[in-house]
């Protein structure tokens, strides 16, 4: 029994040698995980700031300017996602998924918000992933496997996409309320329809999706309620316009109201 210290000194035993390998393997993995967490946090912050920037579109005349500025910000986020892709080159994405999922979801939220403002449609997962293709200078090491400039891609998972879109609905609700406040009469109805489509989409998926999705459904439903209430209020008060004023009001503040969309 007293000899144990000596046994353990047997540093060149096969067991010890094997565990030295394990040590390195585990440390490497852990370090990588940690680097990914940090990247993810950076992505979250920058995406959130992009969303704040995009909300300014309801109050400024030049929407395009903001969209461009937001795109520049998103480009820098994509660069960071590129770093993640680099980090995950040859790895199993799912092994490190928990480290990066918060950032990725926030990016989906930001990029889909940007897309909605520009195109008034829901960006597809393919469209998002199509912009996550990165050219990389080749490292001498893997020249064999990948000659010339190397193409690196990052594939957002459908679940992260879904979770990002769920959060998007909160931003759309905020945009809707702001629009009403800014006297914009058609955006609310447009948002109402779009949000209802997303809501119906989520209820079509129901509880077949992952648990995190179901958790966000309640908030989604609340947002939809707020938007529907806003549309309702616009309609109700619109019903009251005295006949003699109708022309005035229409010309002064609802010139671009699309009768097809807004009138039932």
């Amino acid at each position: 029994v007293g000899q144990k210290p000596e046994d353990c000194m047997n540093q060149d035993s096969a067991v010890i040698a094997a565990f030295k390998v394990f040590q390195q393997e585990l440390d490497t993995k852990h370090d990588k995980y940690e680097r990914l967490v940090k990247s993810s946090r950076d992505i979250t912050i920058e995406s959130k700031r992009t969303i704040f920037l995009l909300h300014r579109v309801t109050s400024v005349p030049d929407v395009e300017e903001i969209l461009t500025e937001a795109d520049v910000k998103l480009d820098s986020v994509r660069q960071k996602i590129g770093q993640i892709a680099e980090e995950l080159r040859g790895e199993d994405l799912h092994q490190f998924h928990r480290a990066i999922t918060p950032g990725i979801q926030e990016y989906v939220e930001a990029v889909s918000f940007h897309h909605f403002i520009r195109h008034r449609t829901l960006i597809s997962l393919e469209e998002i992933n199509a912009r996550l293709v990165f050219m990389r200078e080749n490292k001498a090491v893997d020249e064999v496997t990948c000659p010339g400039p190397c193409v690196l891609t990052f594939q957002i998972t459908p679940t992260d996409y879904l979770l990002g879109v769920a959060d998007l609905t909160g931003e759309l609700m905020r945009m809707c309320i702001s629009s009403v406040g800014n006297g914009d009469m058609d955006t609310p109805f447009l948002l109402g329809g779009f949000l209802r489509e997303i809501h119906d989409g989520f209820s079509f998926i129901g509880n077949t999706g992952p648990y995190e999705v179901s958790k966000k459904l309640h908030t989604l439903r609340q947002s939809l309620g707020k938007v529907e209430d806003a549309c309702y209020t616009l309609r109700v008060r619109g019903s009251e316009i005295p006949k003699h004023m109708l022309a005035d009001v229409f010309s002064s503040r609802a010139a671009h109201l699309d009768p097809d969309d807004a009138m039932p």
Partner: protein
Amino acid sequence: MSVTEMFSYIQGFLSADQDIREDIRKVVQVLEQTAREILTLLQSVHQPTGFKDIPSKCLKARELFCTVRNHTGELKTKFPAEQYYRYHEHWRFVLQRLAFLAAFVVYLETESLVTREEVAKILAIEVDREKGFHLDVEDYLAGVLILASELSRLAVNSVTAGDYGRPLRISNFINELDSGFRLLNLKNDPLRKRYDGLKYDVKKIEEVVYDLSIRGLAKELETVGE
């Protein structure tokens, strides 16, 4: 009988139970799928354009309920009838959703409250526990309460769609429902919690009626109210 034999015998029991649960789960999954389809269909009445073709949507929903009946028919065969409550948790959730959907269809068709008997008929199950796979009274009530919250949303959206008469009718309907529920002595359970939500639905609809009324958009009100 040795200990080993006894445990082998018991394992038989446990396996049988697990198999039953597995079977039930599968049918329930399919039921949930169909329920979601009916929901997606009926939810479209909230769209501004959705108010036009309610009847045709109800017809389509009625068709989907045929599929539901096939599934409930299958479900019944998966376990001994007298063990309903043993496996109740498996289908409780979907049955409440289906009760709601049946109630919603019936409301859209006739603007009246579906009875437990009707729901049972639509789902091809029993009302009386003794007669077989039945609709538990609590599950029926849960379904009705989901309807109430759907109708408060419908009241709002029908105004948006320019239908000013519907909210008044919904208001009367929901008030009657509220009186009904006040007759019940509910325990401190999930149903009670859901019921506590009913008063928000009532209030919401009253505010819609108010908005219409103060703007003179609710001419029918006087007549109905008498």
